[in-house]
């Protein structure tokens, strides 16, 4: 791959100034920096399939510096995020864990430890040492390499086997950074055999400056584990947000992902799920609402390596203004992955003639006994549908609102946690654009 090597010297200077961390973590950082210097930012326009529709030269062109911590009170934070007393709410300000704003985590039956506190939790650290970074190939991903080079905080969650943990772990990365500030959040989850847990990651913007959030999440599901994973991107219109999700599914494990996009100047979520154990199942659904000049790129790969796996991929977009969304959904079924059952679909409503969707579902099948389907649609609502609603006395404005929400509801209704579903419902109801379907 042809890549630019014009990496600003700033990153190397700042790298040398990072606070000291345990030796094992420093080694991970060193690898990250090495890979970042080798691979750089994916700015090349030629031969750059992965980033074909997302131009990151605005990001590469800025010398981003690490964000400063900032003080907030809990009331301010609660107003901005999804919060419920029943949940374990964990707040990061500009990439750094804030124990004052967060719920107590010491007494839970699972281990929830910030990366910055690993040096005080040697048992946990020992288990994580070998696994942190094991799911992501840095040699090909400049942003992930940069995250790894600068990893200093984030959350690690270790769920013991046979533990049904029913509180939502609500991890909020709040970005209030100054001009050209960057944070590198990191999430690591190890779900023990036959455990069950629900985790939400929110990337929330409060900064009106140009800034960058560059996150990496790794989730390991051991045999029979169930993880419900939620992700909300709600950055400010001046923030770039690049995120990676790397998930590995053991035998008979189940991974449910619900990914929502509402805000960022450029957003990108690269989600890669490896069906590594037999009879594993993943259900990846997403909803993106883009407006103005926003750009959202969902880059998703499902890799069926083991037999009898099942995957469902359903993304929906509502695009307004001059916004642009990209859906790259690739399902690979390896030769060994017989009896795989896979469905993928991407549906979009384009509310403006200037909005653009690049939807590229792809399927590579190397096994012969599989069931797969994929499709993508983009368009408006048909006249018969609108006539039906109008014939019930509903005016075009209300009909449009019902239809827009109805389109999004398929994803929202699939949220398993009822309090969270209700919050998302009112969140999206108020975020939907005022729009009148033509009739």
């Amino acid at each position, binding site marked *: 791959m042809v890549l630019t090597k014009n990496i600003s010297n700033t990153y190397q200077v700042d790298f040398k100034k990072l606070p000291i961390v345990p030796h094992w973590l420093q080694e991970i950082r060193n690898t990250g920096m090495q890979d970042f210097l080798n691979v750089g930012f994916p700015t090349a326009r030629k031969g750059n399939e992965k980033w074909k529709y997302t131009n990151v030269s605005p990001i590469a062109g800025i010398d981003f510096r690490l964000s400063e911590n900032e003080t907030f009170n809990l009331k301010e934070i609660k107003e901005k995020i999804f919060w419920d007393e029943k949940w374990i709410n964990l707040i990061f300000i500009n990439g750094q864990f804030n124990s004052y704003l967060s719920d107590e985590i010491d007494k839970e039956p699972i281990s929830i430890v910030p990366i910055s506190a690993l040096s005080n939790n040697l048992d946990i650290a020992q288990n994580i040492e070998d696994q942190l970074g094991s799911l992501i190939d840095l040699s090909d991903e400049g942003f992930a390499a940069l995250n790894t080079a600068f990893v200093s905080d984030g959350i690690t969650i270790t769920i013991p086997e046979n533990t049904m943990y029913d509180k939502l772990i609500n991890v909020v990365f709040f970005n209030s950074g100054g001009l050209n500030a960057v944070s590198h959040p990191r999430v690591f989850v190890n779900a023990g055999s036959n455990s069950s847990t629900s985790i939400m990651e929110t990337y929330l913007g409060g900064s009106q400056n140009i800034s960058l959030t560059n996150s990496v999440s790794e989730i390991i599901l051991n045999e029979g584990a169930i993880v419900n994973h939620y992700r909300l991107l709600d950055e400010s219109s001046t923030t770039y947000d690049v995120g990676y999700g790397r998930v590995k599914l053991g035998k008979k494990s189940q991974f449910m992902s619900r990914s929502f996009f509402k805000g960022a100047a450029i957003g990108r979520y690269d989600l890669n799920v490896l069906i590594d154990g037999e009879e594993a199942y993943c259900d990846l659904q997403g909803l993106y609402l883009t407006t103005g000049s926003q750009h959202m790129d969902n880059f998703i790969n499902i890799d069926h390596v083991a037999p009898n796996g099942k995957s469902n991929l359903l993304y929906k977009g509502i695009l307004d203004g001059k916004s642009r969304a990209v859906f790259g959904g690739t399902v690979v079924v390896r030769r060994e992955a017989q009896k795989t059952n896979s469905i993928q679909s991407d549906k979009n409503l384009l509310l403006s003639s200037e909005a653009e969707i690049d939807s590229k579902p792809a399927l590579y099948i190397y096994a012969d006994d599989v069931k797969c389907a994929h499709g993508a649609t983009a368009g408006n609502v048909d*006249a*018969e*549908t609108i*006539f*039906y*609603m*109008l*014939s*019930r*006395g*509903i*005016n*075009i404005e*209300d*009909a449009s609102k*019902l*239809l827009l*929400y*109805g*389109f*999004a*509801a*398929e994803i929202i*209704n699939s949220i398993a946690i009822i309090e969270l579903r209700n919050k998302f419902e009112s969140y999206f109801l108020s975020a939907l654009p005022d729009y009148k379907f033509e*009739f």
Partner: protein
Amino acid sequence: MTSNAMLEVNNLVVSIADTRILNGLNLKVNKGEIHAIMGPNGSGKSTLSNVIAGKPGYIVEEGEIIYQGENILEYEPDVRARKGIFLAFQYPVELPGVRTWQFLKTSVDAIRKENGQDELKVREFDKIFEEKRKLVEMAPDLIKRSVNEGFSGGEKKRNEILQLSLLNPKLALLDETDSGLDIDALRIVSEGVNEFKNSDNAILIVTHYQRILNYINPDYVHVLVDGEIVKSGDSTLALELEEKGYEWVK
């Protein structure tokens, strides 16, 4: 002067693209009456009910549709509906993600507002909805489901009749409501229509077959062929048609 007329269709000429569908049709429906429009496929039956309800895509070249003394041709479908015209669709539309509760509450409130009434309180609405649901023997979870999504043909038709009785219009247009119904569903749908019927409203049933008229007794039967009413009579005309076929009137 108060008129007893609910609907007057005068010399109605309607085309789709370059094809003429209705050819100078005349029809008068008074309050308290049930009229059946029968005719073979392609005779223009559905076009008539669609044009009265305001479905786009039709070109009205001549004539007028007078509803309660007012020509409604310039009105959008939602305005007509709020004035009391209801079309039970031949193929009710599925609205994925739009909850039946939300849809029907919005609809009921829109019509109430038009009549100068306040929005229904949630509890009041739920009570009335529950009554109507039982009338058409729909499952209790209907209210939470998306409108018509995944419904069988019979369920969709029963849902249309539920809406009819919930919205309580002045003029009900039933477009092939009997098509695709088994005998039980046909009974339920017919009972719903008969329950709705009173001396202050009117019903226009569009149908290919006489079958539904065994359950809903029309005051008048009209035979539509090639966009014109070629024969009118009382309910015995339907039986005669059933026996002799449409060739008889052509």
